[in-house]
């Protein structure tokens, strides 16, 4: 084959669109295939245990997506998952693997629980945004500190963020059992309940709290920031090659701290909604693992904030159905964690096929004939 044959011919300049299109298709195809592979591995796992995978997935569908009630359950869980996934996806644009979102969720929630009494008499129009901002601030400081440590001291952000999640949970237990404990909470130590007027209600006409709308808006905001602004562009350059970014004079330090803080603010907001819309007060239920499921969601969505929306919905459905599925099929509580583990390994292993599917050649083949 001659070299000239591989070069674009003068007669076919329009073919330049093929390569980005091929990359897009591959970007969709690989995660979907990985998700299915993860499900298939889990189905095999169930078969080996003598359980029916068909029953399993049918039950998940019924309990997660089958009825109006299950949809409202799924959507309520999607709200914190969306925000937790953003806590991973936003710093990921800079090449940072931040996995401590759980800590920011917990601290955001504790912040709301702690302010519940002092703000109880305030008008909701002032107190509610204030509470949300304080929760976001707590998360932003917590995860922003991870970014600052990375920037100033070269501390590995993955290890640091996870360590800080453990510290945050210990702090929460301390506050909830000690200084902030409501003496009235006997069986389950909690902070004083949030005043009824300050609680976040449901979306009009829906059986789902406002957190869902805010979380979806947050995803759109993050997408615009990353994909449509110069800040996001600078972040992508810094994520690709930090030295090139520094040579270009980009403020890498500010980007690192800003993006980690923004991710933390989203996770802190998740804590706000968990307390103000779901639990009513801060207690140990805050550390329910949303932060960890959020990691998987971000990786499945390839850290694309818009792709996070459908992926979070899917995984929220699995989480919403877990209680029923486990009871009906006599499976242990950890079943969904195992499923998530399989899917996580599959999605990461699928990275190895990136750029190897050769879709561009496949797409142009028809034209050449």
């Amino acid at each position, binding site marked *: 084959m001659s070299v000239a044959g591989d070069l674009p011919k003068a007669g076919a300049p329009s073919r330049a669109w093929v390569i980005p299109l091929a990359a897009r298709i591959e970007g969709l195809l690989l995660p979907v295939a990985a998700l299915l592979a993860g499900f298939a591995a889990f189905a095999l796992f169930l078969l080996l245990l003598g359980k029916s995978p068909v029953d399993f997935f049918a039950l998940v569908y019924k309990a997660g997506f089958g009825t109006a009630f299950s949809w409202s359950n799924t959507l309520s869980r999607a709200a914190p998952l969306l925000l937790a996934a953003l806590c991973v996806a936003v710093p990921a644009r800079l090449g940072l*693997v931040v996995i401590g979102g759980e800590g920011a969720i917990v601290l955001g929630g504790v912040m709301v629980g702690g302010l519940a009494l002092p703000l109880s008499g305030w008008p909701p129009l002032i107190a509610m945004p204030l509470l949300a901002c304080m929760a976001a601030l707590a998360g932003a400081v917590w995860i922003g500190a991870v970014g600052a440590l990375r920037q100033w001291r070269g501390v*590995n952000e993955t290890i640091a963020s996870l360590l800080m999640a453990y510290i945050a949970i210990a*702090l929460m237990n301390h506050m909830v059992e000690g200084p902030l404990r409501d003496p009235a909470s006997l069986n389950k130590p909690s902070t004083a309940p949030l005043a009824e007027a300050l609680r976040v209600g449901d979306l009009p006409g829906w059986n789902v709290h406002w957190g869902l709308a805010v979380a979806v808006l947050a995803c759109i905001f993050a997408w615009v920031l990353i994909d449509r602004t110069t800040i996001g562009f600078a972040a992508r350059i810094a994520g690709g090659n930090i030295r090139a970014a520094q040579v270009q004079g980009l403020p890498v330090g500010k980007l690192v701290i800003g993006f980690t803080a923004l991710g933390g603010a989203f996770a802190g907001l998740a804590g706000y909604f968990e307390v103000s819309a779901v639990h009513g007060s801060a207690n140990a239920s805050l550390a329910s693992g949303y932060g960890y499921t959020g990691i*998987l969601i971000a990786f499945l969505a390839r850290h694309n904030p818009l792709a996070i929306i459908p992926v979070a919905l899917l995984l929220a459905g699995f989480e919403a159905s877990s209680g029923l599925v486990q009871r009906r099929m006599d499976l*242990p509580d950890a079943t969904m964690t*195992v499923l*998530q583990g399989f899917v996580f390994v599959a999605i*990461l292993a699928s990275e*190895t096929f*990136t750029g190897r599917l050769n879709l561009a050649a496949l797409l142009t083949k028809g034209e050449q004939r």
Partner: protein
Amino acid sequence: MNGDIGLWAVPLAMLGGAIRVSTPFLFVSLGEVITERSGRINLGLEGTLVFGAMSGYALAFLTGSAWIGVLAAALAGAIFGLVHGLLCSLPRVNDIAIGIALMLLGTGLAFFFGKPFIQPVAPDLPAINLGWWSDLPQVQAALRVNVLFLLGFVLALALAWMLRRTRMGLILRVVGDSSDAARALGIRPARVRILATAFGGALAGVGGAYLSLFYPGSWNEGISSGQGLIAVALVIFARWSPVNCFFAALLFGAAGALGPALQSVGVTSGYYLSYAAPFVLTLVVLILSSSKSGALTGAPRELSITK
């Protein structure tokens, strides 16, 4: 009983606690030293530790022998390490991310299969009473040392010798410092790394078996509270030296023993906060031992966290 020696009970309990609590740190970090010396990082050892705790306890209960439990935990850990090593040998697969995924999978599988073993009682690993010379029960309690702790100490020395003086150690170091140099010498870096990760996994499994078979000595879902993660961070602090790992593990063991030790003399305020102590210490140590440029002295050059 505490009235006899007053506040001396605290340092004594911390010494005893340090020895008891440090063993899992020691095994996990020794394993991770070998893995990281080959140029890979396995963040998933927390999951391996928990799975090792479960499988060790289950096998010890089913066979009636604690040592068979330890072997089973090592085998299970080696399998987890092998999976990590094989997956990371594929091009473009990130070792840190795979570690996170295996952390999730390991804990999930451990809880999944461990459910039936929460109630039953498995045999314990034997301890050697090094406090026989003292009449004080506190001293005797502090110096009841488990065989695995002593084994870990010997292993630390052996691994240090292996890295420095043997052909195997040289191969490991070459692979960890430069894949290209290793290939030029006719060594296959991928194979060495897979074996090193499997070895690291096996030791993490043993660390887990210690948790469920000696201290605290039972299997439940809260058995590990981040020891696997702390041990990984500890390797950086120990500058990839097995002997340093031994001392670092003791230090972290003492930090972990602080809460229960204070509680034993009646200090209960800040009890929940004391759970944060080992993590805060790890973070502080990590901050102190890192540097702005990201370059770490003594780090294997192929290691992704230092690149």
